[in-house]
């Protein structure tokens, strides 16, 4: 189990690095999109609550980038801010805009989309984090244990919103159904390891893709049953696979914003 630095084979290290990029980039982009909602949530209490979830996710991104830094891949801030879109490994869902419009102007963000994305993403994260607690890479196990504690509250939060909005007005139900469709279109790479599938699975860093999917479905099934709606199907093949560096334009604009100041002078202290 002591695979850190010393005695780690090159292949093993490559597999760990590949997985860490997927995990770190997911959290960074999810937290970035969530942070665009700051000050604009449907009510003030929600603004405070969802901001805390966004911060936790950013904190998780920091943990994963730090593990990459520890492996000698690069500094956490360079890794988070400077890598171009085609080197990013986040899932397509996490990079999607919150709705029409730039956050600096008067954006038309879609709360139903935020709720569905957050709920489905958080449940997917739970499936992965549970499995990471048995990873062969000890530092990942430690990180996953910490993350798992915070996840309980996140899941509860988004599950409550999900249930409430789907058992309310017709307008809310319709918006939620549309959001579910939109989110599921991008769900094809959520549990994919891309071209690193074999390396990640064979080194027992995380359980197999199919097992993660099953775990996700099982975790949301009771909620869907209660709401009397069908658990949506995960697309067999993603239209774009973020794990292989394939992305939408939304990622480029996100990266331009999140690195705008850092890029003025990456060598300087900020």
């Amino acid at each position: 189990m002591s695979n850190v630095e010393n005695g780690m084979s090159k292949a093993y290290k490559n597999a760990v690095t590949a997985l860490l990029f997927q995990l770190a980039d997911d959290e960074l982009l999810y937290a970035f999109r969530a942070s665009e909602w700051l000050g604009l949530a449907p009510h003030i209490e929600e603004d405070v609550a969802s901001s805390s979830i966004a911060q936790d996710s950013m904190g998780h991104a920091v943990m994963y980038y730090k593990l990459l830094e520890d492996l000698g891949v690069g500094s956490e801030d360079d890794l988070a801010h400077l890598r171009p879109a085609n080197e990013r490994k986040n899932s397509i869902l996490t990079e999607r805009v919150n709705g029409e419009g730039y956050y600096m102007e008067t954006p038309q963000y879609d709360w139903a989309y935020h709720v569905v994305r957050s709920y489905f993403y958080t449940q997917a994260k739970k499936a992965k984090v549970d499995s990471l607690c048995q990873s062969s890479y000890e530092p990942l196990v430690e990180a996953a244990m910490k993350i798992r504690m915070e996840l309980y509250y996140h899941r509860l939060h988004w599950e409550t919103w999900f249930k409430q909005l789907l058992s309310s007005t017709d307008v809310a139900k319709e918006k939620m159904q549309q959001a579910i469709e939109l989110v599921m279109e991008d769900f094809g790479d959520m549990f994919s390891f891309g071209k690193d599938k074999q390396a990640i699975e064979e080194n027992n860093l995380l359980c197999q893709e199919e097992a993660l999917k099953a775990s996700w479905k099982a975790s949301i099934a009771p909620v869907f049953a209660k709401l009397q709606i069908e658990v949506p199907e995960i697309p067999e093949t993603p239209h774009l696979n973020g794990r292989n560096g394939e992305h939408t334009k939304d990622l480029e604009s996100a990266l331009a914003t999140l690195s705008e100041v850092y890029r003025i002078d990456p060598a300087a202290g900020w």
Partner: protein
Amino acid sequence: MTGVLAMTEEDQMDRFMERIEAGEKIEADDWMPEEYRITLIKLISMHGISEIMGALPEKEWVPKAPSLRRKLGIMAKVQDEMGHGQLLLRVAEDLLKPYGKNRGDIMQDLFNEDLKFHNVFHMETKTWADAGLIGWLVDGAAIITQTDMLKASYGPYARALQRICAEEVFHAQHGEAIIMALAEGTEEQKALIQEALNRWWEALLMFFGPASKSTTGSTKQDATIKYKIRTKTNEDFRQMFFDRYIPRILSLGLTVPDPTLHYDEAEKVWKYAQPDWTEFKKIIRNEGPRSQERLNLRRHSYEHNAWVRDALAAVVN
């Protein structure tokens, strides 16, 4: 018959002022004169709504914060400000009860532009240094005025301020850390802080309000002092701000953009060039550089999310 029921308005007022003079805390359900209630409503709803509007200029820099740690820091700060708004609006809502009004009405007053928000939050943020300067000097200024009200005669406000002030101290440290990093950085980074200070200086002086009525035609300081909501005048606060921050500004190698600024040893006061109070009046009339944009953002997101509030109200369980 004697007793409470027979007390005339005048008796009640005398009794109330005795309590104020004795330093007793007034609570939400206690009798209070109309003037006191209205003064508090104006003060606290303006404070609360300013926290909420104040989240917007800083929020502009959250996604752009130049490191992971700074992203975490500024997210936490903006969240605190929204939390302050929430806390204060609850205090204001209790005071509004006799008028049958609630938070929705406070928001409508903001949108109708009957309720104003603090002058500093009408300003533009142009660079990352602004995000640092807001924490360092705007929160620093707020600490000065809010600390004075920690002993305010109105108990619920005083207690809310206890918590708020504790967090404001972290905000000022967060801002100062950003400024220190820039001050120790490259020439370009140092220039960012000087340029930000130049742009913010007048707004900072205005933050404390005019020294007297003769400057702008009105000031709220008289009633708040009479009822022991606060103890010091606007000018006292401004002088305290100079005492605390001029040395720190200078020690960072920055220049105050007011060549006349100096400490008058004989009078024991800072002499400074008055900011443009006509501009101040314009700003608080929502005619400042970003007033309408920020109001629109708030109005628009409120309307755009109305379906969510309707949906929540309709959920029965």
